[in-house]
């Protein structure tokens, strides 16, 4: 199913877009999303191991279901402060 993911910081620069629309299996988890991101956007490969996935306002566990969510984000480690 069509699922939109927001990107930030270096992830956005590498993908060249602030959001990506992906086609995910209905059972797709955050771990699956990471794999799909790497396959569909090879430019993200360098930061894939450290990429964080958020669902809503919380960090997602690898097993968190993400397909069809409208509040997904993916971004590299934070550096505020």
């Amino acid at each position, binding site marked *: 199913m069509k699922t939109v993911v927001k990107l930030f*910081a270096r992830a956005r620069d590498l993908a060249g877009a602030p959001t990506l629309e992906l086609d995910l299996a209905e059972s797709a988890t955050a771990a699956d999303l990471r794999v799909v991101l790497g396959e569909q956007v090879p430019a993200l490969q360098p930061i894939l191991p450290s990429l964080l996935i958020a669902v809503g306002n919380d960090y997602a566990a690898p097993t968190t279901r993400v397909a069809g969510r409208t509040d997904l984000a993916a971004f590299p480690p934070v550096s505020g*402060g």
Partner: protein
Amino acid sequence: MIQLTHAPIDFAALTESVRSTQAGAVVLFLGTVREMTHGRQTLALDYDGYPEMAEAQLRELEADARSRWPVIEAGIVHRLGHLELGDVSVAVAVSCPHRHQAFDAGRFLIDRLKEVVPIWKKENWSDGSTEWVHPGTDEAVGRKQ
């Protein structure tokens, strides 16, 4: 008060807002844009954030601090956008009955903020290059305050 802002941070007002007759101690922390990092010269920083999640995470941090220390009032303001050398990027203010509580709570809040709150800084180095700071990744030079 939890706030993200593109305007300069009014840290005096933030500090005033946490003062209380229940508190014997107020600690304010300011992060400011430092010129030199590991021998490299910064010209400016650009901060990007994921505002909804960042604010939610900051509220969680405040609640976490309140569960650990007798916090009377707390406030966290983070600036986003383009910051020049010396500008205040973040301000954390906390008041507690006793001073060591306030120091510990203040340090906890800024330490955790730097670990979990979805905000990122991009270095504008003096050689003209720019670079997102992503601690723990190969690309990034960790910039720690």
